[in-house]
């Protein structure tokens, strides 16, 4: 299953994009999921819809909206470049942004379900014992939702790795910079004689996806055992 240099580059980049997207999106996803599960506020339905938008919009539309917003001339893109020197357009960071946004709804859904499964009465009990809100979350809620967080992270990671439409629209298909695994497969299939190299990448994509699912199952079982206290 040896890949050529271009294949390795695409694989490494995909992992980098997937891991970055997951790690950056996860804390935000936990926060949003907690808001949606535990808080009532004005605009909650709108927030919920916004979070789910990437799931229902055509990925090309999401990619194009990112291009408008986070491109060099986009308002968010210009602000981030001027303030933090952070450039998304046609960089791997842009691929990570697109991947993170596409995986975000999946993360939020899984984590929200996990939070809703935690009995708020347990959290109330912790508050009466003197724990402030953030400590209750960190010591009670978070440990109890860990399996859900892991499941959400793996879903988000798998989505990030496989993301194609929004990525190619937003940051194009530049080998070594924005050409992730799906983009590389797509590119190989566009040239005559590229199938052999493409099939190797396809197999690697399958290995990563299955490995991620197996890892999350294993982690979730361990965590569930620890939490149930058997």
């Amino acid at each position, binding site marked *: 299953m040896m890949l050529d240099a271009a294949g390795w580059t695409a694989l490494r980049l995909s992992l980098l994009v997937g891991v970055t997207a997951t790690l950056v999106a996860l804390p935000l996803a936990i926060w949003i999921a907690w808001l949606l599960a535990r808080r009532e506020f004005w605009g909650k339905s709108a927030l919920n819809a916004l979070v789910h938008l990437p799931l229902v919009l055509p990925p090309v539309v999401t990619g194009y909206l990112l291009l408008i917003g986070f491109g060099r001339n986009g308002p968010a893109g210009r602000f981030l470049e001027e303030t933090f020197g952070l450039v998304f357009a046609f960089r791997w960071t842009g691929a990570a942004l697109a991947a993170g946004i596409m995986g975000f709804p999946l993360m939020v859904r899984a984590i929200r379900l996990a939070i809703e499964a935690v*009995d708020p*009465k*347990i959290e*109330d*009990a*912790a*508050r*009466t*014992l*003197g*724990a*402030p*809100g953030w400590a209750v979350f960190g*010591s*009670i809620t978070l*440990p*109890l939702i860990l399996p859900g967080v892991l499941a959400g992270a793996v879903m988000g990671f798998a989505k990030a790795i496989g993301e194609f439409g929004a990525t190619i629209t937003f940051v194009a298909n530049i080998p070594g910079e924005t050409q992730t695994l799906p983009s590389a497969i797509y590119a190989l299939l566009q040239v005559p004689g590229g199938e052999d190299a493409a099939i190797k990448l396809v197999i690697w994509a399958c290995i990563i996806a299955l490995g991620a699912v197996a890892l999350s199952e294993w982690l979730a079982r361990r965590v569930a055992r*620890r*939490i*149930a*206290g*058997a």
Partner: protein
Amino acid sequence: MTLSVALRHRFGGFDLDVAFDAGPGVTALFGRSGAGKTTIVNAVAGLLRPDHGQITLDGTRFDTLPVHRRRVGYVFQDARLFPHMTVADNLDYASRYGARASDRPRIIEMLGIGALLDRRPATLSGGEKQRVALGRALLSNPRLLLMDEPLAALDGPRKAEILPYLDRLKAETGVPILYVSHAVDEVARLADHMVLLAGGRVARAGPLFDVMADPAAVPLLGVREAGAVLRARVVEHGEDGLSTLQLAAGTIQLLGVQAPVGAEVRLRVLAQDVLLSLTEPQGLSAQNILPVTIRTIRAGDGPGAAIALDAGGDALLARVTGRAVQSMGLVEGQQLFAVIKATSVAQSAISGGAT
């Protein structure tokens, strides 16, 4: 320490409007399901924000504090232990914020939970869970203990397992306890004060002995549950299983008294188990006959009447039919005799170490 509660809260067609004080010792909030008991303790804990109200502790406003700064120890009906922590971790969680770690060994010993420390809540019995929950609440170094039907989820033997610990808790900790219950026997055994709730209002409030002996409380407690609570001293345990207890008006013999000789105990004598006789009965199988004076007669809504009796300073409550009141010509101030069957005072109604 005195807790003063004044609340108005409306929810789902139910209208709660109560005001009462809870001093040192155990104050029982008693009422049927839906009387608003849990709403009140949740408001005191800060888990519920009432529409209007003021809660003070020793005159200081208390309900403006967030939950975690109120320092109330809350023992819930369903224990609510943290499932992902061991018993020891559950206890430490409380002392982390309560900073009363020095009391840990004493509390663990008092509740008999030393052997459970390494266990997880999922492996504990209902009674064990509730003891751990008690310990956890105490370790948070509370200014006030709230107990919301802590025994309601337990079966008879488990209840009997916990009750002695509650007796000790009451004796050994000085914090005021607000104890929610709809079980009269628990209240009669533990409480010093009683707040009777009905339909979201305080129907009766006062010292336990007074409220329990109040004829007006009979319909609120239920005619089968109503009955005065008396203080008695154990004089001797007979070889036939009957124990002699000293009351203000004389001695009575009862079955199944566990307390040692000399101990002061509480007796709950159900109103329906007290017979009245105009003359001192002779040749009766019941041996417990006390001379009494009628304080008040209160006709019930049904055929019954509740009669408050004075037995040498002790208050007794008897329930007879209205027809009996007529035919016996009972009037207030009248002197007569009360008959109590030895077997009618249930063991569960006899508690040791109470005052």
